[in-house]
């Protein structure tokens, strides 16, 4: 079914896979086991064809997976479900919409899709939740939805990467029953699964144990147990590890607790927490005594973390009370915080600080006396085995080491209570055992009370008492042995499942009966007709439709798309203004005759200037100009009127505030102009018309914008700028988001082609940009009062071509960027500068030189600016502007071609 030969894979310096050679038998259930790391996931993504083969050769379903033609033929035979709850699903879309999207990608028509989806939903017991957004489902339901999406096209090979991690035991069991059930119907189907739960692995047909990118052993579960002489797979795995990893490992045995101490240090009394109408924690009560290890067991999202946050004071309880040391939790009580240590889910220390700096920071914040800090850090490092790595950044440490660092930090101030939220998820079995050994010592020797949550049953069994939690409720609280005994179950897991079934009642059991293969027509489903067309509009519209749905449900992006452009138009329209009006000026008139007053009247009577109180002396002039109160100061010398009348030389002095050079230039122009006008007028008065008949007349016609208003010039030109920036930004984000969130995998493993993917992503944003275009045009005319004189149809046609280019540009940018924040920065950089500086917005392209001129000539904005100004102000239509259309017509296909060439159909 699949064959690996000398396969290796590296991410930069990290070696994820090394020398993998194996044969996967067909038609059976193959399990990959081993601790977290990149090995298992990498192997599966290579197998699915989602990742480029770096070294070696991989044959899947009878062909080389590195061969694009074979991959194209295989998409409809392979299904891949990546790691992470609902990782390849779209959280804002409903269950039905998600599965429907996959159906469209595989080219099923409407009837076919509805039939298949109905059947899958029925079978997985999800029919009742078809309309619920995936983001609001529990982990187990997300995984079932993911399975529906994977099975929609009847694959021959089903690849599941840790499908049940973080899912409650009942959902887990149901999930595997479902898989068994489907395999019964489709006997030829092979299933390859990676899992961290050894209990699950025991039921697979064939196992591959992996560690550090290498294969430790292969065989049936029974063979592995026999080989290592162990009775469970956990132990077998540890036995298979190389000697140096196993060293110092011993099974954790926690000595019985001294029953004498019964002081209650942690208490919850009917605690309820609601977020809106969602009840996260429902009436939870428990009491924990000093020195006890109390376990909280349950799936992701069942309320464990929320309960812990209430105890630490991070969240207030909506109802009920939580107590620490017998007193109600008070978030403002700093004193209590000094007695509690908390380790939140996942690694949550500063990655930018070294191990020592992390410890040091926390020691200081807990006010450990300065001279005691160094000693305390030393002690912690020794105890938690961190001596050698004190100056290393946490990122360089293994997951197990990082968990120990987190614990060391939580313990730095010797707290009496430790609250640990899933401290061991993702940690390998050996490291987990050594972690629990430390917990045991803390509890038994130092009487530290430990409140720990986990979803591993074997860890739960180590606790003194446990609470089983489900959907915000505590199902039972007791010692593990008593819980098993009470349900007469063989293991804690079975007991838990039994409690879950009691709690959920009939609802799920009906779902299970319906999942039995009662329908006779399951066998009759015809295999999906292989769609091998190189361009299928259905797949393109599948992406377009999904993108539209997602955009409609994301408030911040939708706001940016609709309000953003209007807001920015206001800003730019009013902000980038060349108009200089309402300038303040004042006069130091040392003459004060009718003639000097007449001179001043020239200025004060103009609409550009506003006269201020007269200047009294030079000191006053200095002060007021320094203040910025005056843009212009005029000094008229004594005897001005007399000298003018006599025709003597006289000098008027004007000072301009040069702090803002553009404004100063304009002021200077105005003043000179008015001075000239006044002179001509005076000359006429004094000498009669003959003297001023002039030599020639100079007539300036300001065309298209007779008042030379900035708004008329700038506003039509902002439309091209905004139709570039925002659509490009949104289309970049639409692809990069998928890369960052992981749903890009769907593009890698389904038959959708690059052209279909890019066009599908582009269509909704073209539509949105056109909507923006109409809004902006209406705004320009109605709010800014810019007259529209030309052909609106021409402008609309140009806008359509232009937004095809700008969204296309966004898609090209998106091919080489992988994080959203980098996408925002890069897009701003690539779009704003050329559009503002080089596209004729302010300086005409013909005025540019060198690189700027070159960019200006090839940038589509240049041509749309010409068309926008032409149609708005110059009264032009298509015939006049044909020359500017050609570059726009060329840009769209060029950009699409570039996008297709740069986009990868596999992860690298």
């Amino acid at each position: 079914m699949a064959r690996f030969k000398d396969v290796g894979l590296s991410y930069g310096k990290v070696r994820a896979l090394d020398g993998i050679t194996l044969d996967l038998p067909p038609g059976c259930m193959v399990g990959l086991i081993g601790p977290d790391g990149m090995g298992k996931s990498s192997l599966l993504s290579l197998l699915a064809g989602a990742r480029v083969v770096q070294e070696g050769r991989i044959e899947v379903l009878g062909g080389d997976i590195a061969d694009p033609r074979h991959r194209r033929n295989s998409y409809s035979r392979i299904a891949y479900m990546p790691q992470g709850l609902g990782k390849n699903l779209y959280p804002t879309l409903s269950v039905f919409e998600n599965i429907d999207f996959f159906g469209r990608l595989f080219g099923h028509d409407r009837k076919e899709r509805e039939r298949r989806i109905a059947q899958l939903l029925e079978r997985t017991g999800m029919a009742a939740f078809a309309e619920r957004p995936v983001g609001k489902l529990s982990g187990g339901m997300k995984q079932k939805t993911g399975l529906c999406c994977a099975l929609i096209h009847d694959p021959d090979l089903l690849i599941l990467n840790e499908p049940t991690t973080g899912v409650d035991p009942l959902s887990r069991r149901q999930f595997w029953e479902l898989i068994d059930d489907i395999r019964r119907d489709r006997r030829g189907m092979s299933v390859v699964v990676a899992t961290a739960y050894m209990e699950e692995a025991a039921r697979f047909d064939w196992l591959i144990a992996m560690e550090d990118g290498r294969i430790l052993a292969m065989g049936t579960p029974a063979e592995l147990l026999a080989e290592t002489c162990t009775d469970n797979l956990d132990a077998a795995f540890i036995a298979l590890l190389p000697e140096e990893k196993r060293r110092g490992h011993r099974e954790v045995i926690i000595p019985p607790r001294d029953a004498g101490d019964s002081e209650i240090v942690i208490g919850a009394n009917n605690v309820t927490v609601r977020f809106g109408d969602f009840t996260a924690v429902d009436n939870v009560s428990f009491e924990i005594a000093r020195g006890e290890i109390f376990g909280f067991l349950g799936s992701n999202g069942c309320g464990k973390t929320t309960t812990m946050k209430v105890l630490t004071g991070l969240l207030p309880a909506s109802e009920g009370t939580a107590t620490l040391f017998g007193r109600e939790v008070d978030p403002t009580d700093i004193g209590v915080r000094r007695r509690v240590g908390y380790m939140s889910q996942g690694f949550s220390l500063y990655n930018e600080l070294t191990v020592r700096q992390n410890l040091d920071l926390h020691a200081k914040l807990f006010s450990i006396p300065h001279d005691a800090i160094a000693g305390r850090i030393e002690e912690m490092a020794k105890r938690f085995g961190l001596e050698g790595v004190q100056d290393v950044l946490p990122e360089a440490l293994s997951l197990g080491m990082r968990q120990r660092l987190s614990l060391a930090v939580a313990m730095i101030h010797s707290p009496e209570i430790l609250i640990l939220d899933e401290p061991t998820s993702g940690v390998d079995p050996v490291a987990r055992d050594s972690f629990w050994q430390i917990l045991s010592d803390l509890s038994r020797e130092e009487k530290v009370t430990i409140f720990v949550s986990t979803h591993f049953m074997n860890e739960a069994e180590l606790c003194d008492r446990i609470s089983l939690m489900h959907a915000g409720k505590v199902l039972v609280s007791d010692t593990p042995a008593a819980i098993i005994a009470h349900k007469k179950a063989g293991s804690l897991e079975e007991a838990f499942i039994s409690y879950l079934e009691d709690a959920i009642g009939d609802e799920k059991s009906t779902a299970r009966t319906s999942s039995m293969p009662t329908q006779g027509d399951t066998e009759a489903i015809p295999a999906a007709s292989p769609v091998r067309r190189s361009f299928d509009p259905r797949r393109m519209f599948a992406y377009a439709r999904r993108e539209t749905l997602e955009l409609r449900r994301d408030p911040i992006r939708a706001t940016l798309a609709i309000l953003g452009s209007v807001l920015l138009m206001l800003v730019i329209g009013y902000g980038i203004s060349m108009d200089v009006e309402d300038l303040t000026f004042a006069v130091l008139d040392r003459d004060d005759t009718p003639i000097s007053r007449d001179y001043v009247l020239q200025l004060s009577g103009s609409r550009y200037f506003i006269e201020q109180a007269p200047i009294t002396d030079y000191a006053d002039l200095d002060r007021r100009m320094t203040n910025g109160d005056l843009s212009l100061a005029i000094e008229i010398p004594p005897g001005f009127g007399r000298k003018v009348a006599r025709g003597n030389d006289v000098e008027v002095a004007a000072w301009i505030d040069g702090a803002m050079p553009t404004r100063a230039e304009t002021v200077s122009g105005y003043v000179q102009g008015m001075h000239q006008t006044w002179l001509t007028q005076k000359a006429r008065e004094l000498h009669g018309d003959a003297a001023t008949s002039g030599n020639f007349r100079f007539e300036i016609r300001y065309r298209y914008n007779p008042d030379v208003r900035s708004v008329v010039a700038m506003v039509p030109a902002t439309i091209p700028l905004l139709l570039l920036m925002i659509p490009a930004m949104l289309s970049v984000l639409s692809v990069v988001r998928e890369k960052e969130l992981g749903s890009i995998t769907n593009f890698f493993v389904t038959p959708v082609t690059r052209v279909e993917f890019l066009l599908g992503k582009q269509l909704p944003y073209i539509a949105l940009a056109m909507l923006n275009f109409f809004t902006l045009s209406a705004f320009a005319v109605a709010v800014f009062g810019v007259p529209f004189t030309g052909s609106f149809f021409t402008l609309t046609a140009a806008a359509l071509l232009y937004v095809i280019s700008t969204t296309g540009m966004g898609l090209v940018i998106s091919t080489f960027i992988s994080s959203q924040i980098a996408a925002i920065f890069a897009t701003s950089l690539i779009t704003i500068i050329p559009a503002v500086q080089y596209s004729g917005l302010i300086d005409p392209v013909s005025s540019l030189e060198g690189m700027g001129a070159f960019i200006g000539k090839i940038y589509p904005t240049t041509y749309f600016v010409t068309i926008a100004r032409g149609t708005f102000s110059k009264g032009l239509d298509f015939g006049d502007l044909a020359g500017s259309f050609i570059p726009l017509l060329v840009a769209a296909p060029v950009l699409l071609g570039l996008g297709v060439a740069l986009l990868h159909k596999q992860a690298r």
Partner: protein
Amino acid sequence: MIMRLANIANLGIKELRSLRRDTMLLVLIVYAFTAAVYTEATAIPETLNRAAIAIVEEDHSPVSSRIVTAFYPPYFTAPRFIGQSEMDDRMDAGLDTFALDIPPNFQRDLLAGRAPTVQLNVDATRVGQAFTGGGYIQSIVSGEVNEFLNRYRAEADIPVDLTLRARFNPELNKGWFGGVTELISSITMLSIVLTGAALIREREHGTIEHLLVMPVTPLEIMISKVLSMGLVVLAASAVSLILVVEGVLGMPIAGSIPLFLAGTALHLFATTSLGIFLATIAGAMPQFGLLLMLVLLPLQVLSGGMTPRESMPEIIQTIMLAAPNTHFVALAQAILFRGAGLGVVWPQFLTLLVIGMALFIFALGRFRKSLN
């Protein structure tokens, strides 16, 4: 609840250490305060640079050829000679900004005292060049015509002279202005980005919860971020002002640098608080990035730093009074260009303090709320 200075100091040092490891942000800081300031200062072209001009020359006389040869680079492109009929089309297509029409028999009419008309057509949708260029072309043509005529008759003296002097920047060097504008933009942008990103990073990594279960209050966390990031930006702006603006660009700083930095500190108080506020609204880094675009641009463009405030509509002027940038731009221009002292700029200092306090208290409220 008492605030502990030791906690603020320790958390502040942690912020600085985190920043030191973030190469991306460090590069951004260095770029924004050096290269960006320098490029902005040197990239601003003169208003009139290679303006496209076409001439309809219908006279072909000595005087018209004088006029025609007076237009040359760098202010103008070499003039293109066109026929009367082409003029409108070329202007419609945006090929020319100016078209000068010298009528037939211009010289004859001129000498006969019939005062012929030279027409200049200006594409006024290019506002920047239209005004300055129009005046400039007028004076070139007048100059050439007058010089030509002077050979034929003496010009009557104009009795009144106007002496124009630009204060604070006598040569109207746009580079100085551009450099300072960019410095102000960098200060605003980085202070918002650094504090906002610092808070979002803590939230995304879950470290903020970690701090909150320790004996540390939200107020201390927020002050530590405002202080440390403010300090970084303040130091960077001092270096940039002295090395880049004063050193490389050679701008004489008229006022007191310490006074400007004091004003900057007040401005930073406001903008770093704004950064925290935006971070509490944005769910994650990408949303923060988008919000930033919607907030930064109006702050920078409408604050009076790029174009004069007085030519904006009344309502925008009023709204922008609430923005810290407006006051910071005013005080920066007053101190750096006009050499104003505290006696002049105290109203801006006071306003910034008030805006800063308001933003801080508001952001603190949001921050506390967002933690629950």
